[in-house]
């Protein structure tokens, strides 16, 4: 799956979960930019991605993410290897 498709899918999930956020969803987006993206929101986003994309993250992978771009890269790596 290429990164453009991943970010499109993520934007759909992101806007569904963080419905007060109306700004752009880009690779540079961080939790600091989105009021609802707190620690619980982060967990809910990760679980939503796991369920809708059929992936599984580790606690360490989730902890290390610094922005949406790194999440896109992680998903791309996992889908490429079929992890």
């Amino acid at each position, binding site marked *: 799956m290429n990164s453009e498709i991943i970010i499109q899918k993520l934007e759909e999930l992101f806007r569904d979960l963080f419905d007060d956020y109306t700004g752009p969803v880009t690779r540079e987006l961080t939790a600091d930019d989105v009021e609802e993206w707190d620690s*619980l929101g982060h*967990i*809910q986003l*990760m*679980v939503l991605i*796991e*369920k809708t994309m*059929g*992936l*599984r*993250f*580790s*606690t360490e*992978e*989730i902890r290390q993410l610094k922005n949406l771009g790194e999440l896109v890269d992680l998903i791309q790596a996992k889908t490429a290897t079929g*992890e």
Partner: protein
Amino acid sequence: MTEGARPSEQRIKAGDSVAHEFVITPEDMVLFRRLSADESLIHIDADYARQRGYRDVIVYGALMLAQLSHVVGQHIPGVLGVSVKWSITYRSALYVNEPARIVLDVMAVSAATGLVEGRYRIISGERLIAEGRTQSMIPVEMIDDSSAPD
């Protein structure tokens, strides 16, 4: 009475299920009316309830949520859990002294985060009273995700 109760040390996995039976009594209604100061006529005035098409006063929705609290706090995920989200949609009225049953099914678990997602239904006889979803956090070591995608 509770069916499917799990030992507290047993790990939680998708597909786990628990059922709990309950009856809301007139005493429960009085206690909750006092506690909440909710004087909605539909809960306290049988004549008004009949005018609105119900056969009697209907149970406070929050008393059903109290039963959900029992199921979540004692069974799934149990005493180690922290609730983070509940939803409820009421489908039909529950009456005082009417036996009801709440069934909670685990829909998904996340070993990375410790999140447990559940779906519940409250039923009386053949009637669906309410339904909704729950999310709870538990220590990750309590999660069994052996049925999750590889």
